[in-house]
Structures are given as C-alpha cells and as structure tokens.
C-alpha cells in the first residue's frame, strides 16, 4: 500500500498557494487542474516552462498557484511579453493564460499578430463572457441583450467568436472546449503543448458570481450543465444553419495545420542553432 496519499498533482503546486483565491465553483480551477494533468501526461518538466499571465481572474490560474517561472504582466499584454520570452530562449515552453477581455479587448492586437507570426507560444484563453475581476462589466464576448453592470438596459453589441477571430488571423492551431469537457480539454491542451507553433485553446468557463447571476444561472453546476447542453461539436455544426446555431457553443478543433514556427525561421535565416547568449 502506497504511503503517499497526497494529490497526484501536488508537485506542481507552489507551496503556500493553496487554497487559490478563485470563487467556489469557478471554472478557472477546473482549467488549472486540466492544464496540470496535460503537462503531467505530456511529461513536460516545469523547469522548462514559463507561464505568462494577464490581468483578470484567468491570470490567477498560474500565478501564484503553479510552481513554475511565472511572469504576471500588465493587462492585455501577456502575449507580447511571451513573444519576448520565447524569442529570448526558444527552448522554453511558453504558455500564456489570458481571459476574453484581456486577449480580445485591450490585448486584441497582440493576439492576432502572434497568430500571424506563428510564434510557438501556447495561449490558454479563459472565456467567461464577462469582466469578472472588476465586478461584471460587459465584455467583447458578452452576448447581445445581456444586462451587465455597464449595460443595465441590455448589451447592444455583437460578441466576438474568439476562435474564429484567431483562425482569421492565421492561427495554425485553434480549438475550443468548455470547463464541462475536461477529458477533451486535457487532450487538447496536451496536443497544443506538444505540437510546434502557435496554439489557441479557448475554454468557455463558468463565472457563477458575475456572469451566471446575470443570466439566471448562478449555480456553477447548473452553468456546467448549460455548457454541456449548449455545446455542438464542430463536425455537426458544419451542417447546421446560423439560426440553428444561435446561442450554441461550437466546440472542437477549428484548425490544425503545420507551418514554420517563428523561432525556427530565425535560426534558419541566421544560421544559428540557438538564439541569444544562454
């Protein structure tokens, strides 16, 4: 009988960082665990990884929770900082944790350019369709009509489809799941981590406190069941009309193509096996 009764992922958690500060039932916790499971399954040593976090609840997934080199940066900018980290030391596995507001509002420019460049940075985008950390303001991903703290009469704007946005920007690996689909999510994260090039993993995540409450589903369990019910696999979605897809979440792999990764192109052009001085 094994005498080790600690959590199998305990070795990835920074001492003193538990319990993390996400709300009860927050999807971020599920995403955090799924990521660690993916890293564990892929056999990627944490010593080789750098997590770059934006500002928002998603930023608190790796910071300070993961026992790994962590760069918790300014709002909207993790992808830009991560580009510098990856170019500075291409041997590092660079993973960005960002939210829907962080990466598509203030950070939108950095997102589309990283996709265009195919820099080998992996972006985990937590989409809770709201600005959670600041109290529930409308986000570029909030559906039309929703009443948030700053759209008390109903949101007039159309939301982004983040995965489609990244596909249009040239993302070579784009996938979307929800916090309900943990098995798929772990597999998707593992694939993103082990393939070459840019990866965008969008995860719809429940924010029961600031979004669920607005749409009448304030219980995290109910929100996850709602994700389950409203999700349509991409293979099936291709056969459905726009009307039939209204209000649904299309999940699965949008794009997965091979293309030269930026740091490799640098090495090729300048004949250097490894960039920089490390």
């Amino acid at each position: 009988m094994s005498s080790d009764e600690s959590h199998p992922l305990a070795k990835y958690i920074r001492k003193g960082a538990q319990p993390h500060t996400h709300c009860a039932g927050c999807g971020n916790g599920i995403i955090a665990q799924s990521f660690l499971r993916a890293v564990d399954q892929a056999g990627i040593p944490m010593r080789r990884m750098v997590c770059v976090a934006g500002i928002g609840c998603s930023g608190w997934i790796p910071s300070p929770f993961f026992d790994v080199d962590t760069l918790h940066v300014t709002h909207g900018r993790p992808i830009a900082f991560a580009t510098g980290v990856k170019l500075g030391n291409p041997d590092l596995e660079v993973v960005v944790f960002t939210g829907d507001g962080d990466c598509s509002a203030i950070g939108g420019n950095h997102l589309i350019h990283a996709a265009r460049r195919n820099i080998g940075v992996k972006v985990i985008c937590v989409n809770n369709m709201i600005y959670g950390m600041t109290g529930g303001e409308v986000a570029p991903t909030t559906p039309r009509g929703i009443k948030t703290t700053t759209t008390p009469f109903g949101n007039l704007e159309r939301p982004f489809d983040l995965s489609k946005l990244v596909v249009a920007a040239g993302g070579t690996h784009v996938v979307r799941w929800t916090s309900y689909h943990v098995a798929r999510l772990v597999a998707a994260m593992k694939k993103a981590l082990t393939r070459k090039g840019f990866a965008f993993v969008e995860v719809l995540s429940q924010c029961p406190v600031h979004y669920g409450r607005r749409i009448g589903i304030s219980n995290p369990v109910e929100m996850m069941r709602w994700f389950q019910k409203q999700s349509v696999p991409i293979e099936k979605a291709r056969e459905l009309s726009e009307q039939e897809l209204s209000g649904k979440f299309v999940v699965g792999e949008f794009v997965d193509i091979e293309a030269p990764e930026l740091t490799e192109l640098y090495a090729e052009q300048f004949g250097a096996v490894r960039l920089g001085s490390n």
Partner: protein
Amino acid sequence: MQGNEACALGAVAAGCRFFAFYPITPAGEIAEKMSQLLPKARGVYIQMEDEIAAIGSVIGASWTGLKTMTATSGPGFSLMQENIGYAVMTETPCVIVDVQRAGPSTGIVSAPMQGDVVQARHGSHGEYEIIALAPSSAQEMFDITIRAFNLAEQYRSPVIVLADETVGHMREEVIIPEENMIEIVNRRTPSSAAEASRAFLSPSVAPMPIFGKGFSAHVTGSSHDEYGKRQASAPEAIDKIVRTISEKIRAHTAEISTIQKLMLDDADVVLVAYGSCARTAEYVVKQARERAVHAGLLRLIGLWPFPGKTVQQALKSVGRVIVLENNLGQIFPEVERVTAGGSEAFFLPPETIGTLHRPAYVLEHVMEAAS
C-alpha cells in the same frame, strides 16, 4: 557616422542581443542598424505590432537573461509608460532610447525638442525612481548607450537614453574602442535555487532569478513581499517596495548622474544645458571668454536621478546661472531648487522652440548677465 547608428553600435558592443521596435521618426535608423547587426551577433531583431508590445517583449526577453533594448520617440514613449512602470516594479534591466522630437502629440517628427524630460522621470503612474541619461554628440550616443546598459544591469532598472532629433541625426566622428577596452557590467544571477528563494527587495539589488534555471521565480506587477508573493491589500508591502526600489537608485545619485564641467572654476556666469543644447552652450561659453567674460558650462549627462548635490556644489560660488532647454523649463525647476539662496538662476529657451538656440541670442544674455 550618424548618432542613431552609433547608438546601435553601442548597444551591440554592450551585449544587447534583443531589440524590439515599432517604426517611428526619428528613431528609425537605430532600428535599421540593429536589424543588420543583431542577426550577425546571434541576437534577435523583431518588429512588434505597437510600442506597447515592443517594450513588453523587451521585458519578457530580459527575463530569459538577455540584454534588451527598444527605441522610440515621444508618441511611442507615451505608450510605453505602463510597461516601463512594470519593469521598475519587477526590477527588470532594459534600455529605452527616446529620440525626442517636437510635441505634444504628433508635433513635428524631425524637429528637436526636449519635451519628454519630466515624462522620463514620472511618465508611469505610482511612485518610483528611474535613470535617464542625455547624450549630446554622436560619440556619446555610442558611449552613453553602453553606460545605460551597464547601469541597467547593475541596478536592475529600466534606463532611458534621452536623445533628441539633433543628436540622433547629426553626423560626427565616432571612435569605437577595442572590444576588450569597453567596460561591461552584467547582472548578478543566483547560483542556486536556495539563493534564488531568499528574500530580495534590497537597496543593494538582489540577483535576478532569470527563467529556465529551475528557480520558479514569481514575477508580478502586483504589490508583493520580499519573496515575490502577492500582497494585494497590505500597505506595508507597497511601502517597502516603493522605498527600496527608489533608494537603490537615489543612494547612488552621484555615481549614476554625472556632469561635465567646462571653465567653471572662475566663472561668474554659468550655462547649464544637456543634449543638443549643450553644444550651443559650449560654443557660446568660448565666444564669451573671447570677449573677456568669465563664462562656464555645466553640462548634465545624467538627468534622473537629478544630481542635486553635484550641481549645487559646482555652482556654489557662481553669481548667475542660465539654464538652456528646448522646452518651457523641465530641468530648470531642479536647478532653481538646488541653487536657491545662492546663484540667481534664469531660464532661456530658444527664440523658437523646436529649433536649437541661436548662439548670438544666447551670447547677448550671457553678456547681460555678466555685466
């Protein structure tokens, strides 16, 4: 060679191996030169999507252990301020070259001005200290850029090279020393994970736990304790941060911010200037001396932290001081403050701001002050 070109050569000589840029006049030549030099030196040149990304990637790359730099002008410098504050907060070494141009706003892209001086000191929010140096020749664009890197590494701080359009675009002789004659300072890094996890936040500057060495460094712009652990609500934590990272620079003001003295010993009237204005000032001082006026020049090389004691000491027995700046007085209040009760201090902008001072105009004022 051109000042901007010399700046690029200086950066590479100092060990810069990562340069990120967003196109802006009049800094373009620095970038062009870096894009040619860096690949040969096994470094990275990247053009980012905006200035915010440029400084962001510069900070990210610095955390992998590289010496990094960006270059810009006023509008880009404004955009970079938030991330400059992040570099201050996280004690990240990096160099930012601001080739100042006429502003505010789009202004005139190829006219000199010294309008970003106060911004260099306090452009980001919050309370902090920073280092800013002002080259006044093509040679200094080479030398001072190297010095900027050395100071950045030593003090683990962003360092601003406050050039201006005239200094950036002037063509002069530049002497490039042999590689082994150039003094290079490198950041200290921990030799073990145990050393890396010790308390940092010291005025004597902790070693930098660069990424990829197994240090599990937690680097955050949030208020934190001396182990990098976020302290989101305790004012004591931010008090310690603000005082420590400011003191680490302030305590060494005299060594960081140097001055050049020309004919000060017997001067009755002293011109105080920096950057391109110092070139005019030097010429005027010599002209005044030819007219038997005891004029002198105090050239500021380090602007921030302002070398108050050094300046006060140098101007101790000087009756009148004229501060030349191509703006409406950004360093002048500092000079006025430290000479209060001693010299009479006057401010003299050019007749037309956005141009260099007309020497005859300055000479008139010097002659008047001397009489």
